[in-house]
C-alpha cells in the first residue's frame, strides 16, 4: 500500500517535471469579436493550423479575445502572465494594442512574437531581445510601394490615410522613398465611411495615381465609392485594404489595383501551396496574409522548440533569432532589431473564376529591412 502510493507520487512528480521540461505554453491575445475580428480569426486559424500539423502535443495555446480594445488586451495579458504563467505571447493585431502589451510582457521575462503589428517604436528605441516581429515594420509595405512607383513611371501621387499614428507612419514610409511629386496629402477621420468629399478632390487633382492606406471596412467603403465615381486614376496601396477577407466584400471594384505585401497565395516557394490547400481544407476559405503570418509565427516557435527548451531563456532566444524555418513567404531572417528582412512583392487584384484575389506582378523590394534598426541598442 505504502509502496504503491510512493510509486504513484514518483510517477506524478516525474510527469510534472516532464511537463515543465518539454512543454510550452502560448498565450494568444487577438481580436475575435467586434470590428476587425476577421484579422484576428485569420491569425489564430493560421497559427493553430501549423501547431496541429506539427503533431506535437506539448504545446498548449490559451486564446483570449481583446475586442480591439487596449484595456481588454492589457487585462488579458495580466491574466495570461500571472494566472496561466505562459512562456510565449503572441496574437495582437493592432499597433496601439501591441504598444500597450508587448513591452510589459517582455519586461516580465516572456517572449513576444508579433504576428501582425509593427509600430516604429518597437523597432527603434523600444526594441527588446525577447520581442520578435514575424510580420513587418509598419512602414515596410509603403517603402516598397514607393520604390516600385519610382521604377514604373508614377509621377504625381494623391496620398490618403486615416488621421492616427499608423496612418501617419504608412504615409511617412511612402514619402521616405518616393521621388515624384506629392500633389495632395489628405488625412481622414478614423472609421470614416463616406469618402465622397475626398473622391471629389481626387477628381479635381492632377495626380496620376491614388495611394491610400485604409484598413478594414474603411477600405471597402472607399473602393466601392471610388469605382462608382468614374474617376480614372491608378490606385495603389499596402495590402491591408486588398486582403482576401476584404476582396470578397469589395468584389470587382478592386480589379487591377496594385498592392504590396510580403506574401501572396500564388508565391512559388516550398510549402506555400501546401499551406494554401491545407488552410482551405481546414477552414473552407482562402488564407489571407494574416493567416500566413499566423502560420509563420507558429512555424518559428516550433523551430525554436526543436533546438532549445524554453526554460533555458538564452538558448531559446538564440534559437528564435536563427529563424530556421521554411517561411511561406520564402526568404525570411531577422535583422539586428529582431524585425524581418524579407522581399516585398507587388500584387495585382485579379479574378480567378468567380473569386476576386491577388496575383504577383513583381518584386518591389529585395531583402527589405526597416528604417529604424539604427536606433535600436541591442
Amino acid at each position: 500500500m505504502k509502496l504503491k502510493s510512493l510509486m504513484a507520487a514518483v510517477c506524478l512528480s516525474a510527469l510534472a517535471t516532464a511537463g515543465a521540461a518539454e512543454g510550452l505554453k502560448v498565450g494568444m491575445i487577438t481580436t475575435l469579436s467586434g470590428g476587425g475580428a476577421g484579422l484576428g480569426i485569420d491569425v489564430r486559424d493560421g497559427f493553430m493550423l501549423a501547431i496541429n500539423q506539427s503533431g506535437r502535443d506539448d504545446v498548449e495555446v490559451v486564446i483570449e479575445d481583446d475586442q480591439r480594445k487596449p484595456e481588454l488586451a492589457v487585462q488579458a495579458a495580466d491574466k495570461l502572465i500571472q494566472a496561466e504563467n505562459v512562456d510565449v505571447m503572441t496574437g495582437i493585431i493592432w499597433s496601439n494594442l501591441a504598444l500597450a502589451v508587448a513591452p510589459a510582457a517582455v519586461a516580465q521575462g516572456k517572449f513576444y512574437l508579433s504576428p501582425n503589428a509593427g509600430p516604429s517604436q518597437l523597432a527603434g528605441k523600444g526594441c527588446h531581445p525577447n520581442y520578435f516581429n514575424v510580420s513587418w515594420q509598419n512602414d515596410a509595405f509603403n517603402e516598397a510601394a514607393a520604390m516600385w512607383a519610382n521604377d514604373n513611371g508614377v509621377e504625381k501621387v494623391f496620398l490618403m490615410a486615416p488621421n492616427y499614428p499608423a496612418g501617419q507612419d504608412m504615409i511617412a514610409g511612402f514619402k521616405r522613398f518616393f521621388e515624384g511629386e506629392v500633389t495632395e496629402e489628405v488625412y481622414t477621420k478614423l472609421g470614416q465611411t463616406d469618402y465622397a468629399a475626398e473622391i471629389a478632390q481626387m477628381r479635381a487633382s492632377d495626380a496620376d495615381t491614388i495611394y491610400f492606406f485604409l484598413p478594414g471596412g474603411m477600405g471597402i467603403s472607399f473602393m466601392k465609392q471610388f469605382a462608382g465615381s468614374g474617376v480614372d486614376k491608378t490606385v495603389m496601396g499596402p495590402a491591408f485594404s486588398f486582403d482576401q477577407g476584404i476582396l470578397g466584400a469589395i468584389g470587382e471594384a478592386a480589379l487591377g489595383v496594385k498592392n504590396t505585401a510580403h506574401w501572396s497565395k500564388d508565391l512559388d516557394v516550398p510549402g506555400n501551396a501546401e499551406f494554401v490547400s491545407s488552410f482551405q481544407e481546414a477552414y473552407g476559405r482562402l488564407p489571407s496574409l494574416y493567416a500566413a503570418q499566423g502560420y509563420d509565427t507558429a512555424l518559428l516557435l516550433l523551430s525554436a522548440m526543436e533546438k532549445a527548451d524554453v526554460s533555458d531563456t538564452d538558448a531559446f532566444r538564440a534559437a528564435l533569432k536563427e529563424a530556421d524555418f521554411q517561411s511561406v513567404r520564402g526568404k525570411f531572417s531577422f535583422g539586428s532589431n529582431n524585425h524581418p528582412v524579407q522581399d516585398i512583392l507587388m500584387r495585382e487584384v485579379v479574378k480567378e473564376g468567380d473569386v476576386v484575389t491577388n496575383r504577383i506582378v513583381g518584386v518591389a523590394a529585395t531583402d527589405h529591412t526597416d528604417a529604424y534598426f539604427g536606433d535600436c541598442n541591442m
Partner: protein
Amino acid sequence: MTALLLLEQTLNGLQFGLMLFLMAAGLTLIFGVMGIINLAHGSLYMVGAFAAAAVAGLTGSFLLGLVAALAAAAMMGAIVEITVIRRLYDRDHLDQVLATFALILIFSEGTRWLFGSFPLYLDVPAMLSGAVSIGAFSYPLYRLAIIVMGLVVAAGLFLLIARTRIGIRIRAGESDREMIAALGVDISKLYTIVFALGAALAGFAGALVGAIQSVEVGMGEPVLILAFVVIVIGGIGSIKGAFVGAILVGLTDTLGRFLLPIIFTAFMDPSAATAAGSALASMLIYILMAMVLIFRPTGLYGSA
C-alpha cells in the same frame, strides 16, 4: 473647375444629409411619440444592410434586397418593441439606455453568429452603376439615386404624418398619450407601428448605404451618434427638425472636410494646414450642435 468641385461637394453633402435624415426620422419619431431613447436604432440599420446583402446575394436582385431590408428591419423593430421596449415606457431614461444598449450587443453578436466575422458583399445595381456626365461635370449615378429616394421618402413621411389617420394618431400620441388612449385608440398597437416604421426607415438607409460602404458588424454605431446630433440640432420629436438638422449636418461635415484645409493653406504651410484642417473638420458638426444649443436650447424646431 472650382465651381464644379463645389457643386459636386454640395451634392455630396446633400446626399449624406438625406441618409442621416432616414436614420434621424425614425429616432426622433420614436422618441417624440413614445419617449424612448433607442440606442439600438443603429443595429436596425445594420439588420437592413445585412438582409439586403444576403437576399441580393441569393437572388441577384438589388430591388429584392431593398424590399427584404425594409421587411426584416420592420419585423425586427416590431419584435423588439413587443418583447423589450414595451416594458420600458414607465421606466426612466437610464433603464431605457441600459436595455437598448444590451440590444446592440445582442444584435451584433447575433449577426456575427449568423453571417460570420467577415464583411459581406453588396454592390450597386448595374442599372445605377457608373457616373453621369453633363458637360464637364460628372457625378455617381447611385448617389443621385440616393438623393432622389431620400427626398421621396421625406415627402412620403410628411404626407403620412400630416394627411393620414395614422399620422393624426401619431401626432396626438406625441402631445397627450393618456388622452388618445381614453379616446379609444389602441395605444400599444400604435406604438408597435411607430417603432416598426422607424426601424424600417433605418433598415432602408442601411441597405441603400450598404451598397457603397462596408456591410459589417458594428456599422450602425457611428451613424447612430450622428443621428443623435441631428435630432438634438433639429429639436427632439420634430420630423421637420430632423430634416433640416440632417441637411445642415451633411453639408457642414462634407464642405468642412473639403474647405477647411484649403482655407488654412492661406496662412499656414500645406502639411500643417492639412493636419489642422482635418482635425477641425471632424469637430465641426459638434461645434455646430453646441452653437445651436446655446441660441436655441430645445433645438431648431423643438418645443420645451
